[in-house]
């Protein structure tokens, strides 16, 4: 019972399981078993959603029913997944102008080779590590944006990312663009409508009104404490709901109470996913120490089970702020990212829910056209983005401006597509929602046709 697993010898997930197996009371005849011990797992097949779910302990059935009921009512809602390439991914490597003599001179060390041409624009080549995306693109499921950004680009990670997250070039906005959409269209009792996977809330999902959630994964949201089980455990968890409702005038205490209430709702919604075996991928995902493929795998299972998701955000594998050693950093990061996105698409297809999901892959900016001599590149302007999904209108969105005339005074790639136009298209064409209610000055931006 007191098995110790040293943290330097295992992953964090293993350590969590190790802790979950400790400090339990002896079980005697007639006692209810402690929640979370794996001693009395009851497995169900939820026929309506075709997923095997495991539930622990007694007294959980009502929650289970609740989850399914909530799911059934929102099964057809479209889902947008936002995948962030953190640090400013080098657009001139993701899709690179192979034959351009300027490319060879600007990128004497870092010019990418070995990719295959982009069907829509023969000047551009896919980075070899993006081959899985190229395959989906060949099936008409990827829209490629080779030069996306905004006028007067800001080269600060934080400012530029902020612009993308809030959907406006305004440093004072405090809610995310998806957060404002959820405030306008969401409900007061469903934190899963805006879900961050990966431990902290994505700024794009920051709301002013409705609850949203952040979790590591769908099967990792249990609450227990040593020396507490059975009825007392149930009552303790119910007390989270009570503590979440205490009235207070202090803003910080109110923040804690609100989060407590949201954690309690989320705990109830995710109860059916609580245990191993609940998340079964229908296709293989890349094996990686990074959490991205696992997060997508859990996400596909949640969507497949009909949980009431609407907007989801997570970070891709890798750090793209390649001031140095770009060659060593970029390839492996893109490789895992692209292979995971490919598996996610196939998983959704196998589960029969691919027509409900589109995934936007983006970064805060691209990088300087001229390499910096540390084997890296400095902050630039226009970046690359991709929209992936069965309902996506595959092809090119905005053109590649070329290196001859397409660089600004600072030597950075000029944007040909404004990210706010893409957001407006997604709101209108995917969510069927008036973009002018969400995005400041939305009328100014041309909307590309992104969906079929």
């Amino acid at each position: 019972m007191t098995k110790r697993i040293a943290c330097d010898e295992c992953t964090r997930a293993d350590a969590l399981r190790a802790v979950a197996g400790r400090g339990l009371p002896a079980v005697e005849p007639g006692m209810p078993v402690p929640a979370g011990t794996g001693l009395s797992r009851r497995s169900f097949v939820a026929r309506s959603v075709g997923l095997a779910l495991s539930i622990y302990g007694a007294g959980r059935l009502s929650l289970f029913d609740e989850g399914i009921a909530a799911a059934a009512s929102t099964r057809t809602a479209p889902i947008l997944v936002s995948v962030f390439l953190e640090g400013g991914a080098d657009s001139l490597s993701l899709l690179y102008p192979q034959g351009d003599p300027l490319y060879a001179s600007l990128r004497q060390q870092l010019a990418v080779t070995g990719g295959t041409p982009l069907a829509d624009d023969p000047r551009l080549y896919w980075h070899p590590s993006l081959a899985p995306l190229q395959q989906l693109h060949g099936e008409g499921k990827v829209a490629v944006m080779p030069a996306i950004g905004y006028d007067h680009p800001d080269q600060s990670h934080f400012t530029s990312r902020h612009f993308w997250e809030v959907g406006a070039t305004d440093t004072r906005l405090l809610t995310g663009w998806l957060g404002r959409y959820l405030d306008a269209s969401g409900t007061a009792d469903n934190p899963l409508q805006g879900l961050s996977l990966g431990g902290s809330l994505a700024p794009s999902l920051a709301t002013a009104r409705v609850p949203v959630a952040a979790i590591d994964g769908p099967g990792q949201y249990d609450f227990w404490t040593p020396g507490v089980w059975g009825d007392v455990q149930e009552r303790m968890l119910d007390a989270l709901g009570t503590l979440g409702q205490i009235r207070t005038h202090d803003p910080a205490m109110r923040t804690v109470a609100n989060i407590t209430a949201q954690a309690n709702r989320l705990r109830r919604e995710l109860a059916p996913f609580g245990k191993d075996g609940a998340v079964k991928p229908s296709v293989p995902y890349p094996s990686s120490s990074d959490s991205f493929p696992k997060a997508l795998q859990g996400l596909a299972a949640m969507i497949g089970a009909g949980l009431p998701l609407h907007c989801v955000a997570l970070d891709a594998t890798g750090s793209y702020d390649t001031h140095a050693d770009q060659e060593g950093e970029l390839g492996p990061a893109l490789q895992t990212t692209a292979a995971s996105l490919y598996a996610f698409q196939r998983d959704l297809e196998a589960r029969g829910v691919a027509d409900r999901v589109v995934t936007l892959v983006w970064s805060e900016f691209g990088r300087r056209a001229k390499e910096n001599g540390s084997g890296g590149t400095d902050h630039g302007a226009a970046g690359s983005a991709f929209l992936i999904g069965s309902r996506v209108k595959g092809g090119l969105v905005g053109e590649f401006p070329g290196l001859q005339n397409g660089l600004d005074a600072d030597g950075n790639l000029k944007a040909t597509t404004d990210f706010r136009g893409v957001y407006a298209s997604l709101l209108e064409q995917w969510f069927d929602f008036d973009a002018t209610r969400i995005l400041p000055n939305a009328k100014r931006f041309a909307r590309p046709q992104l969906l079929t």
Partner: protein
Amino acid sequence: MRHPRGGDDHDAVGVPVYRGSFGPAQAERLLWRAGFGPRPGEAEALAKKGLQAAVGSLVNPGPERLVGPKPHDSKGRRLAPADAWGHDHCWWLDRMVRTSRPLTERMTLVWHDWFATSNSGVGSQKLMLQQNALFRRHALGSFADLLHAVTANPAMLIWLNGTENTKDSPNENYGREMMELFTLGADRSAYTERDVREQARALTGWTNRWSRGRGDYDFHFDAKRHDPGSKRIFGRTGSFTWQGACKLCLEHPKHASFFVQKLWSYFMPGKPDAKTAAALEQLYRADHQVKPVVRAILMHPELYEGPRMVKGPTVLVAGLLRRVGGGVTTTDWAWIGDLAGQRLFYPPNVAGWDETRWLDTASYRGRWIAVQRILQDRRIDPAHAPGRSPHPKAILGRALAFWRNPDLSPATHAALLRFTESALASAGGAKWKQEQYPPLVENALRQLIAVTPDLQTA
């Protein structure tokens, strides 16, 4: 009513000073904001000194004493902070728990966030600990000295590519962040893109050696790699070097206001009013000393009369351990820190942690697990808990005493009592339940008390 004045400190002219009563409640809040909360009896002892002397004892502490048993991992082995995974986090957490100089340690944490450097990019716990010692050395000293030291610090030189910034191929990374995040701030029209590029040239020249056995070592300035040419930065022209680059930022007219706002934000939930900000800026401008500004902030009425702040995850854990007289007896704290949103030596990026957004549903669960981990070694075993009154109020009273009787709002107290009564009632008529449930309820209360809005804020 004396004017704040003391020994080596400057006169905080024009900064409002708290004049209300200074009892244990005020002393407790001061200890949470300026440190890691009180040990048993500490708030009462500090309150007896009065505000002036209490703040004086924090900004001018005696030599450091580490109180309590040394930290170790779950097998009782010594920590290896420079080598073993997670031991860096636990080593520093232990220092926060055991130190007799809480403000020094808290300021070390402030500088770690301000000059946020992550071992994810440095790749050497040894260099990270060197930087940590630097922050501690300069904790309440001169910001000018600190900025110079950080600019030449090996961990920072790796983190923001300082050693790859050469005259033939400038790398803007450090030059940009020293303006945007360390001294001037973004979106304040304090600098242009051209200033960034010219600043990068001024900062050229740092280099180091690397070997398979030693990793990165021998960090030094090499004049051959430095660009000695003329640069134009903030409208001034000169053949600036790295010292010049630091000086230009420190003398920039928008630096003092950036410094004051940012420093204030570590101690208070809101912004300083205009009069306070102007007075603090004047205080700081004299010679860039940190101590007088911190001292004035800690005596400001807002700290005692203003709204509460959500405790940061590390501050919370260190404080809870101090409260129960516990030490660091496991390296689980490293991954728990990660879950709760603050793994020391691994800030999320160069902007540090977002102190306005500590809480979301994931980090809330991390905080729950942190409390759970403290209670793991301290649970009441139902089989060995005879002679304890099973009455709801008695059980709640004992659970509160476990956490040294924290102040709770009436609403929180009522919610906890309701839980106690309902959980005891759930035993129904079963005799074994009636015997076993009271200690279970007390265990549950210990968990619930520590996650209340009251204990999560100060």
